[in-house]
């Protein structure tokens, strides 16, 4: 557990007045408040540090203790014992910025030195929504193809969720009320889950359509025929037109990806033909190709 320099975090020196602290805090909070920096994890972390620094420095008691013990904070317990004999002060009048995403996350250093979450010193007894939690689930393309259930662990709490088929890479879903507990009787926060879907070795996805490049031998491409094609839903028989050109495409309607929350609807599968020229030709084959070239 490392010592945290709260003065440095707020960009002030040790002689800063309470007004200086308030101003510095407000300035930093406006810069890093999670409401102003959506989806920015660094901003959230910075904001928590700023909140913590303010919690300590805007409270004369805590600031005194912090200044007195500073780097020797591990001996602060003895100080606490002495303090029990003294009358406790009424606490800070400084405000603590909150927010759906700010919660009461304090560093181990803070918890060790001051204990608790420090929320008791808030000037206004306002009901706050609990912290919004965020989580990421990694899926394969084949997982995202079918509706399935998964149990996830968020802040020690096991939550069973149903992931509808067709979920997209980067898509975020909200699970109401599964965030942090509300403060002063406020409602719980929400849980936001973002999905990261790994690339598939054969199929590429764009929206509800799937794309695949399939190798085709020259003879089938020239003369036409039938091949067995792999899809995410099993194998399908596909007719190949005679004189199929390299790079040409064929669309398999409804063989793409399921449409999110639209049961029974699917995108298309677009196959691009990659025609392979035969190699290691025998003399006979070379002869036949020569004959063909003259015809």
């Amino acid at each position: 557990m490392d010592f945290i320099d709260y003065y440095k975090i707020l960009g002030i020196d040790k002689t800063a007045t309470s007004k200086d602290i308030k101003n510095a805090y407000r300035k930093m909070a406006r810069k890093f408040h999670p409401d102003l920096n959506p989806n920015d994890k660094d901003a959230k972390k910075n904001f928590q540090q700023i909140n913590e620094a303010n919690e300590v420095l805007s409270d004369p008691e805590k600031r005194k203790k912090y200044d007195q013990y500073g780097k020797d904070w591990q001996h602060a317990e003895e100080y606490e014992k002495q303090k029990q004999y003294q009358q406790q002060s009424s606490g800070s009048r400084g405000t603590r910025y909150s927010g759906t995403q700010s919660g009461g996350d304090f560093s181990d250093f803070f918890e060790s030195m001051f204990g608790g979450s420090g929320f008791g010193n808030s000037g206004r007894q306002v009901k706050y929504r609990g912290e919004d939690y965020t989580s990421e689930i990694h899926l394969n393309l084949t997982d995202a193809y079918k509706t399935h259930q998964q149990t996830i662990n968020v802040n020690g709490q096991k939550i069973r969720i149903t992931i509808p088929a067709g979920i997209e890479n980067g898509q975020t879903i909200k699970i109401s009320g599964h965030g942090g507990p509300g403060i002063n009787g406020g409602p719980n926060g929400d849980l936001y889950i973002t999905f990261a879907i790994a690339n598939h070795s054969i199929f590429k996805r764009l929206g509800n359509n799937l794309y695949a490049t399939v190798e085709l031998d020259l003879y089938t491409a020239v003369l036409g025929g039938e091949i067995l094609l792999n899809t995410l839903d099993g194998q399908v028989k596909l007719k190949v037109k005679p004189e199929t050109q390299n790079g040409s495409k064929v669309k398999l309607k409804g063989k793409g990806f399921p449409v999110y929350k639209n049961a029974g609807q699917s995108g298309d599968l677009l196959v691009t033909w990659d025609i392979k020229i035969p190699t290691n030709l025998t003399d006979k084959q070379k002869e036949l190709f020569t004959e063909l070239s003259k015809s």
Partner: protein
Amino acid sequence: MQTEYLIAVDKFCACHNIEISFISSLQQNGLIEITTIEESNFIDAEQLQQLERIVRFYYELDINLEGIETITHLLQRLNIVQEENKALRNRLRLYEK
């Protein structure tokens, strides 16, 4: 038929320790919509998150209504850009080996 969840404005204000006039000024500035039923004002639950965010901007970050309007507009644009970025990244995956 879709169920609509409404929150009484006076209850919201009591809960957040704010003036009712503040909610009225948000409505006048077009930042939120208020539904009136039998002379009582309500906020659609869908707007709750947006409203709580505005309350934090105003009361905690000391940002005035003009600033909140600007921030709200910019956040909406940021959201559009982030969605566009996500769509483009997914498109780019088509060409990744």
